[in-house]
């Protein structure tokens, strides 16, 4: 059936349904002009179209009916019940022909002579005279419709010559007998129609163009400030937005469509694997763009299969683990902001950290020392690495099987992110976050080196003005720019440099030029993109870049802005990748700096390397440093035998690591200072040069007892002294970290921390605050103290510890005993929502970052605030 005919049929069926209703209305109120006009128009349309399509039978019937209706409408003839019946009969005939058309694609043969004669007679004003006849005929025909077995219709069509009035018109093949008959029989109008995807795509494209043109017009109108246009433009803008929404809606499909095959898949899986699996699907009616849906279908199927295959245990194992025999896979979808979140979780065995570690090392994805410094979440993310899963043996690992890297790639391709959280023995949950639509995105327009670029809003967390007296400024550690944002050092990427638009680095100091930092999140990584200027956000239509530009990798597309200019759309993923901000997915460092003994920190730590005194590089955790500064030497004064400098309206004591400060010694004009801050006080440590910032798993060899040093470590391939910050800070005066009004009650704290390095950091800081601190190396020791009946006011515990981790420890403490109601603060290098949630579930009162001294103190303050008053 060609498209034209299909369109005609759809349209005519709709028309016929409307006609039925209208005619019945007409019968009740025969003089209703609007109804009459409507009927006339509908029949006229049918007639017109079928004439155009060469459907002669239809045309003749419709034409005869139209004649009568025309006379009714013009008031020449009075509307009578008989007349209406006649029209209804004509309509029935039309319906019959239409239904035959639908099945066969051609008009059935048949004779409408008598009907037309009646209609013509009615038109000629004779309708009243043979009144009984059409009435009877109509009744007969309607009766026949109901009673006649349908089979008769078929042979009748085969003998088109027969001048049978009733049957042949309702010809229908038995196979399709219900639909045409019923739809033609005036059933309620269908609530949905089929539209080809191409039509929708075209519509979407047109709307996209319309949005662009609208933006362009708006911009012009703003520039001209022409009042006459602004009102209609405003309306145009609204209508365009509504139209955009409307067309978007037509593309929306419930995600349940992508899940439709899951129950079957899971059933087959459960039989195949001999496991009992329940599939729970929530939020199946959550809608998302068809295009996105198509792209997400395969990854979802894959992940569900994985959950069933590798995630869930067999019934035996489950029973042994104290779970119900039936495993459960849950699919959950919901909207959040402009995104859709899809969770695929199971209550299976979870990811085995040890096995992933082994695999990662054996496949050369990371060295043991790399892994030693990783958080659980980071280790989990290995399953997304290409190569992790391709080896055949890996499927035997309890982790996920083949192709999670493919899933990740697919999800990222549509601008989404995927994350995994897992608890060994409890299950695994994947969370996919994808944009609702790909076609139109909201983007921030930025400028760098005179060129404009669009950054999709999806990854943008916040915007920070820097330099130009704005209060915050870009600091530089060696060549790496960083921004201190709420006590966190944010790595920065200069967009101009990344794109090769500017050579040198610009000075975004307080007094220098001003710029902006677009704080962006890619996966779990947060970094800042330095730009010169910010413009509006604009709805943009993403168009793919030309093939000869696809290799660049920095752009996810391009678009045309309101002012008609072409602009490139930046891909934050690409920027993160190229600049190495992103930790996972990138190349892995393969240094074999084996460290056999000594203290190791649990975390990969950003270390500032510097030189002071001798040639051995010194290291200090970057997170402890508030600022780096170059102070003009002539500003350094002496006060009480200690060098000080006026710094931000305060006197800041300066410490030298070489013992004593000789201003004249090296003919220096500026002194580099590491600034540590506490409230409004600051302390500086003078150093000779800043060397570098590295991200390393710190393995500190036991110190040689030198005061001021924790020991040495191999950092960036060189033996480096790790300085004992607490010791140096104490040199500036014992009360340096003590608050002005120290509390009268001494609180006793228990610190559980396996790393000596961090114990060294945390304990003095807490002690300086007036707490009495007992530090132990692990939960086992801590629990011994509990048995001994030691009493504490609060517990501060690390999370990642060997043997028993912080979660288990918290559960143990909460499980009973004297410490059951103590406040517990978790300390960890990674504050991630999932980890925080888990920590709270385990019983932690609060969760703070390891370097976040202030947060820890604030948290402890909060813990004690309530009980003291109570």
């Amino acid at each position, binding site marked *: 059936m060609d498209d034209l005919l299909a369109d005609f049929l759809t349209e005519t069926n709709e028309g016929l349904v409307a006609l039925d209703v209208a005619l019945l209305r007409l019968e009740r109120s025969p003089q209703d002009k609007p109804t009459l006009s409507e009927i006339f128009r509908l029949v006229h349309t049918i007639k017109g179209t079928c004439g155009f399509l060469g459907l002669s039978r239809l045309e003749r019937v419709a034409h005869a009916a139209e004649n009568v209706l025309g006379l009714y409408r013009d008031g020449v003839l009075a509307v009578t019940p008989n007349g209406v019946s006649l029209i209804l009969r004509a309509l029935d005939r039309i319906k019959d022909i239409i239904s035959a058309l639908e099945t066969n694609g051609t008009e059935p043969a048949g004779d409408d002579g008598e009907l037309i004669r009646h209609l013509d007679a009615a038109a000629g004003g004779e309708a009243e005279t043979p009144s009984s006849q059409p009435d009877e005929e109509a009744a007969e025909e309607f009766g026949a419709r109901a009673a006649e077995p349908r089979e008769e219709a078929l042979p009748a069509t085969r003998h088109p010559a027969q001048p049978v009035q009733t049957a042949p018109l309702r010809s229908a093949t038995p196979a399709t007998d219900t639909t045409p008959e019923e739809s033609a029989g005036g059933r309620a109008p269908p609530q949905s129609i089929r539209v080809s995807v191409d039509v929708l795509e075209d519509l979407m494209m047109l709307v996209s*163009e319309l949005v*662009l*043109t609208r933006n362009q017009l708006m911009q012009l109108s703003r520039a001209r400030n022409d009042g006459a246009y602004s009102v209609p433009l405003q309306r145009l803008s609204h209508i365009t937005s509504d139209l955009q929404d409307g067309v978007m809606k037509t593309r929306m499909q419930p995600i349940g469509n992508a899940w439709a095959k899951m129950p079957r898949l899971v059933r087959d899986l459960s039989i195949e694997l001999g496991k009992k699996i329940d599939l729970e699907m929530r939020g199946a009616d959550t809608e998302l763009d068809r295009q996105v849906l198509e792209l997400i279908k395969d990854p979802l199927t894959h992940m569900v299969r994985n959950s069933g295959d590798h995630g869930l245990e067999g019934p035996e194992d489950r029973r042994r683990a104290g779970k119900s025999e039936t495993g459960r896979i849950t699919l959950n979808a919901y909207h959040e902001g402009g995104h859709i979140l899809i969770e695929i979780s199971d209550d299976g065995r979870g990811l085995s950290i040890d096995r992933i570690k082994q695999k990662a090392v054996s496949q050369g994805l990371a060295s043991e020392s790399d892994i030693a410094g990783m958080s659980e979440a980071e280790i989990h993310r290995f399953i997304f690495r290409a190569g992790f899963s391709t080896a055949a043996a890996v499927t035997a690992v309890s982790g996920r099987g083949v192709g999670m890297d493919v899933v990740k790639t697919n999800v990222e391709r549509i601008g989404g992110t995927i994350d995994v959280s897992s608890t060994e023995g409890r299950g695994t949950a994947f969370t996919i976050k994808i944009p609702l639509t790909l076609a139109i995105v909201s983007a921030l327009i930025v400028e760098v080196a005179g*060129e*404009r670029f669009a950054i999709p809003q999806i990854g943008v967390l916040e915007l920070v003005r820097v330099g130009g007296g704005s209060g915050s400024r870009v600091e530089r550690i060696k060549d790496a720019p960083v921004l201190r944002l709420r006590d966190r050092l944010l790595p920065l990427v200069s967009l101009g440099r990344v*794109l*090769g*638009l500017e050579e040198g680095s610009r000075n975004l100091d307080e007094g220098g030029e001003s710029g902006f930092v677009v704080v962006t999140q890619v996966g779990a990584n947060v970094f800042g993109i330095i730009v010169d200027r910010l413009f509006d956000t604009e709805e943009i239509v993403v*168009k793919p870049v*030309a*093939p*000869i*530009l*696809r*290799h*660049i990798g*920095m*752009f996810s597309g*391009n*678009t*045309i802005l309101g002012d*008609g*200019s*072409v*602009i*490139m759309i930046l891909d934050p993923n690409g920027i993160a990748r190229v600049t190495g901000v992103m930790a996972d997915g990138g190349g892995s460092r393969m240094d074999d700096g084996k460290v056999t003994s000594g203290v190791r920190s649990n975390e990969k730590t950003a270390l500032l390397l510097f030189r002071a005194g001798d040639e051995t590089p010194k290291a200090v955790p970057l997170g402890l440093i508030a600022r780096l500064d170059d102070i003009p030497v002539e500003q350094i004064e002496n006060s009480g035998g200690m060098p000080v400098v006026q710094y931000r309206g305060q006197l800041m004591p300066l410490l030298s690591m070489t013992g004593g400060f000789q201003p004249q010694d090296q003919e220096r004009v500026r002194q580099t200072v590491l600034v540590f801050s506490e409230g409004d006080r600051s302390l500086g440590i003078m150093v000779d040069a800043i060397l570098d910032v590295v991200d390393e798993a710190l393995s500190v060899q036991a110190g040689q007892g030198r005061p001021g040093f924790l020991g040495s470590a191999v950092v960036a391939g060189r033996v480096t002294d790790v300085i004992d910050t607490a010791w140096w800070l104490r040199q500036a005066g014992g009360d340096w970290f003590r608050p002005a009004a120290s509390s009268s009650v001494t609180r006793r704290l228990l610190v559980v921390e396996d790393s000596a390095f961090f114990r060294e950091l945390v304990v003095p800081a807490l002690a300086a605050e007036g707490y009495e601190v007992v530090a132990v190396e692990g939960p086992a020791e801590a629990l011994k103290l509990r048995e001994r009946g030691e009493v504490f006011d609060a517990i501060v515990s690390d999370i990642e510890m060997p043997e028993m981790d912080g979660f288990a420890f918290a559960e143990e403490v909460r499980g009973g005993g004297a410490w059951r109601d103590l406040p517990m603060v978790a300390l960890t290098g990674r504050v991630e929502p999932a980890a925080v949630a888990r920590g709270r579930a385990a019983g932690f009162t609060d969760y703070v970052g390891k370097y976040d001294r202030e947060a820890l103190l604030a948290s402890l303050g909060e813990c004690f605030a309530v009980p003291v008053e109570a």
Partner: protein
Amino acid sequence: MRTQTTQSAVADAELYLTLTVAAQACGVPVLVVRDVLGPQTITRIPLAPPEVAGSLNLRGRIVTAVDLRRRLGLPARPVDAQPMSIVVEMAGELYSMLADSVGEVVPLRQDESAANPPTLDPVWREVSLGVHRRDGQLLIVLDVERVLAIGGGR
């Protein structure tokens, strides 16, 4: 790979649009040309191959501009000279070739075409389909597909 223009080349004259790049006359088959535009606002594309001058907006479609001077290893266009855009379509994408000036449409007979002289610069030889003598001047017929085979596509 040969272009469709050579395949369909018959003895009869075909129409070519003439253009000049650094005083060298060139021709492109008129059938591949979609538009000829005057000076346009061109957005620079960072990190793009040097031959790519940027992108421009042609009635709502994004066109990638390739500077013929840079493509052919010729000295850069004087700052005050505005290039002309010859828009062609290849594999569904629009490209604009930037030339110094655009001449007229001329018929060129295939049988009058001479093979590339062996002394022709390798860069030119790569993109040349043949040489015609016209009004005492040599006119190089450009293979559009090869001209645009740059960047990731090379």
